[in-house]
C-alpha cells in the first residue's frame, strides 16, 4: 500500500472526500443499473405469465363448451 495507515488512505491529504465520493457514486450507479435490469426482468416475466394464464383460461373455456 502507498499509504502508511488506513486513516491516511481515507484522508488522502485532504482529497479524500472527492476521491471516495467518486468511487462510491460509481459503485452506486453500476448497482442501480443491475437492479434496474433485474426489475425489468421480473416485469417481463410477469407479463409472459399473464399471456400463458390467459391462454390456459381460454383453453378451459373451449373444453367446457365441448
Amino acid at each position, binding site marked *: *500500500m*502507498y*499509504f502508511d495507515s488506513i486513516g491516511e*488512505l481515507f484522508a*488522502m*491529504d*485532504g*482529497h*479524500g472526500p*472527492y*476521491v471516495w*465520493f*467518486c*468511487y462510491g*457514486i*460509481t459503485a452506486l*450507479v*453500476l448497482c*442501480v*443499473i*443491475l437492479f*434496474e*435490469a*433485474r426489475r*425489468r*426482468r421480473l*416485469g*417481463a*416475466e410477469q*407479463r*409472459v*405469465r399473464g*399471456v*400463458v394464464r390467459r391462454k390456459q383460461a381460454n383453453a378451459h373455456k373451449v373444453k367446457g363448451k365441448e
Partner: protein
Amino acid sequence: MSIWTTFHKWGSPRWFYQFSGRLLPWLGGLSLLLLIGGAVWGLALVPPDYKQGNSFRIIYVHVPASAVAMGAYMTMAIAGAIHLIWRMKLAAMVMKAIAPIGASLTFLALLTGAVWGKPTWGTWWVWDARITSVLILFFLYLGVIALHQAFENREAAAKACAVLVIVGAVNIPIIYWSVEWWYSLHQPASIRFIGESSIHPSMLRPLMATMAGMYLFFAWAMLLFTRNEILDRERNTRWVQDIVCGNDKNAESSSVL
C-alpha cells in the same frame, strides 16, 4: 457459413437469447473482478500524481465511465443504422437497451468530472467544449429514452430513435477532439493510440484494468437489458413461455439476473 446466414442467425431473438445466456456469467464475473481489482489498485497502491496529488485517483473511474459512455453511443448508432437499413428487429431492441445504460455512464462521467474539477481547477463546472459536448451526449441519451416512451407504435419509435441516434453521432468525434481543437481547462488525452502516452506505466496499468472492466460491464448490462426486451416483445411465442414457466430444460437458469 455465408455472411448472410450469420447475419440472419444473429438477427434471431431466440438464438441471441440463448447465445447471450452463456456469455453472461463470464462477462459479469470478469467485469466485477477487473473493476474491483482496478479500484483497489488505483486507490491504495499507486503513488499520487506529482502535480495533482491524490485527486488524480479519480481518473480510474472518470475516464472509463467517459470512454464507455462514448463507446456505448457508437454501438447504439450502429444498431440504429442496422435497424434502418436491414429492418432487423433485434437491432432496435439493442438500441433501446443501451440508452438507459449510456445515460447512467454519461451522468457518472459528468459528476466525477465535476468533483475532480473542484480540487484540481478550483471549479465544479466550466462551459468548455469537452464538458458541454458531453452534456449534449447526456441529453441525446435522455432524448432517445423519451422518444421511445412517446410512441405507442414500437416500429415508429425505433425508426425515429434510429434517426436521432445517427444524426447525434456527429457529437462523438467532437467530444473526442474537443480537447485538441479548443484548448481549455480540461487536459488533453493522456493515452494515445499513436505515439507515446504521457501517463506513467505504473499509473496506466490500473486504468487499463478499470477501463476493460467498464467495457465488460457495459456489454453485460447491454445483454441483460436486451434479453429483457426480447422476453417482453416475444411473449406470445412458445419458446419464451417455456423459458419463463420453466418448461425449457435447455434454457439457462434465470438466476444470473
